[in-house]
């Protein structure tokens, strides 16, 4: 999952300090793995270098890093592209997808579109696997079936999430 895109997405709601960014990230996505300061710092430097964020101001008074970051237009476009691009279906996709959905909701983008896009991608892969399975031998069938069942589970999650988008939106925006 892309921490850079996530932090960019969080910035889209308004300029924030690095510390705020970390807190927001941990609150929404870092349930089990809080972000290290260093990682925020290095990621923001990279984003700054690529012109996706800019420094909005530096607060006076103690503290190691009191820089306030704001997202640039290029940064917004980058988030947009990332969100609308389906992820390559893979078994442990959910954290990325979840992040994307929450960010889409946070930034007022169409989360349902995002989910449908992902579904189409999953289905496409399932069709490919099904075709391979039909034409292959038993070993192919078993391998493909393994993947198919995982993809099916993802799709169920997508379906369920799509059905609960309204609820989720309320929760995220609180």
């Amino acid at each position, binding site marked *: 999952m892309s921490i850079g895109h996530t932090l960019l997405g969080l910035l889209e709601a308004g300029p924030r300090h690095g510390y705020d960014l970390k807190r927001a990230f941990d609150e929404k996505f870092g349930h089990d793995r809080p972000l290290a300061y260093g990682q925020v710092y290095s990621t923001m430097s990279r984003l700054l270098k690529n012109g996706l964020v800019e420094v909005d101001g530096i607060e006076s008074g103690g503290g190691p890093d009191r820089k306030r970051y704001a997202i640039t237009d290029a940064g917004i476009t980058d988030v947009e592209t990332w969100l609308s691009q*389906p992820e390559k279906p893979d078994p442990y996709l959910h954290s990325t997808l979840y992040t994307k959905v929450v960010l889409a909701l946070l930034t007022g983008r169409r989360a349902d*579109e995002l989910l*449908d*896009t992902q*579904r*189409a*991608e*999953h*289905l496409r892969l*399932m*069709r490919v*696997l*099904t075709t391979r399975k*039909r034409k292959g031998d038993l070993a192919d069938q078993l391998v493909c079936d393994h993947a*198919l*069942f995982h*993809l*099916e589970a993802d*799709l*169920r999650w997508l*379906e369920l999430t799509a*059905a609960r988008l309204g609820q989720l939106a309320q929760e995220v925006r609180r």
Partner: protein
Amino acid sequence: MTAPAGSLLAATDLRKAYGSTLALDGAEFSIHAGEVVAVMGPSGSGKSTLLHCLAGIVPPDSGSIVYAGRELTSLDDAERSALRRTEFGFVFQFGQLVPELTCVENVALPLRLTGVKRKEAERTALHWMEQLQVEDLGAKRPGEISGGQGQRVAVARALVTGPRVIFADEPTGALDSLNGELVMQLLTEAARSANAAVVLVTHETRVAAYSDREIVVRDGRSRDMERIV
């Protein structure tokens, strides 16, 4: 929006209400000859209603359904029945085989309805039962065979008249995965070899994966997954 060119069966802006419940609210659909299209969606989304409308079983309240250049909504009940007898085939979830008739008689039934002689109808029926690998069950009654076998008999029945479109409404809904896979494999293969299009209503993605394309119905509106991205 108009139907895509070259489609065998296409519907635009279908609306259908059952009482105050809106089952279809501007749904679109199209299928090419020989294409397998899965119609997916949660329960109550209107996917079965879409199938019923497309097959001419239920007339929509408004909208247009064009099959091979004919507007279905302007046909009367007898004409639509005749169309279903000759051009369409049907597979449902369960309860579609006449329990008193033997399997081969069940498969031969659509042919006999179009006036084919009994002997000949049953010969054709046996041919299709071989395709579906159920030729041994000819003399048995539906109550004496398993669910998967019953669905394969039903698929044979749907194919027996050489239809151009097969409508399958949750054909694997009552089956376990292995039997479901088998039915789907045989159904799609037989349909492809007969160049019959299949409208496949299902809520199972693994079943839908046997299609060439998916359409998702949600709250009575359809969405062609192919056109995303």
